[in-house]
């Protein structure tokens, strides 16, 4: 049996590497799934959209992050959906809603969207993670 002793710097480096690996695994999985996914910070600003979302919208990540995706909502759904989204953030509760989202061809399609709050292990609020699916055919 061998004993490995790590000093503070090495332990920190190992932790950083492990975090980077799990982050890279998450993004690889997110980009591989056909479900549209997003992540937003505590200020509701989106920081990530996966490939399925960006392909659906025909936007780049740079064009979509922040609050810019909201401009893809159908005008008749905007107030209701944005209101639900805000309430979920303020109360840090899960949400689910259906709305029309503009696709790459400029046509609005119905999607069903869910979101869940994210917390650190000591319950510090980090924002939300969410996912959506195109349900136009079932409408």
């Amino acid at each position, binding site marked *: 049996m061998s004993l490995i002793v790590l000093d503070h710097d090495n332990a920190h480096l190992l932790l950083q590497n492990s975090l980077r690996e799990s982050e890279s695994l998450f993004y690889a999985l997110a980009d591989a799934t056909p479900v549209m996914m997003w992540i937003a910070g*505590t200020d509701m600003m989106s920081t990530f959209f996966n490939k399925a979302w960006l392909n659906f919208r025909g936007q780049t990540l740079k064009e979509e992050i922040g609050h810019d995706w909201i401009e893809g909502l159908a005008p008749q759904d905007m107030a209701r959906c944005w209101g639900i989204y*805000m309430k979920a*953030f303020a109360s840090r509760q899960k949400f689910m809603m259906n709305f029309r989202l503009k696709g790459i061809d400029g046509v609005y399609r119905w999607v069903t969207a869910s979101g869940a709050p994210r917390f650190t292990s000591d319950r510090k609020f980090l924002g939300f993670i969410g996912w959506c699916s195109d349900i136009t055919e079932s409408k």
Partner: protein
Amino acid sequence: MKKILVVDDEEKILDIYLRLLLPEGLIVRCAHNAQAATSILVRESIDLVVLDINMPHIDGHSLFEVIKQFNPHIKVIVSSAYPIEQQMKRVPSAEGYYDKAEGFAVLLERVQQALVHTPREV
């Protein structure tokens, strides 16, 4: 202390409103578009929103609907260069209206009137 959110795409207007409202003992938050305004609304308890109508992308009318969906108790004074009759047509259910040509003393009066009937103290 009452908390006000001013939403206007013109930085100069935000600056003027800030200087007008702060000495009245109000906490003032500023947002230059609808998206920034909603980020503030979910994180802070806002009593009153002074809302510009003409803003690029998402206009004041749409933001008004969003605010009322989020919390119907938040009061909104519509602020615009349009005459009040036109503002009332565009946003019929706001708690107050302010024509930017009326002068800042009038805005202050409308803000104070709206806040009198706001029960929540922050």
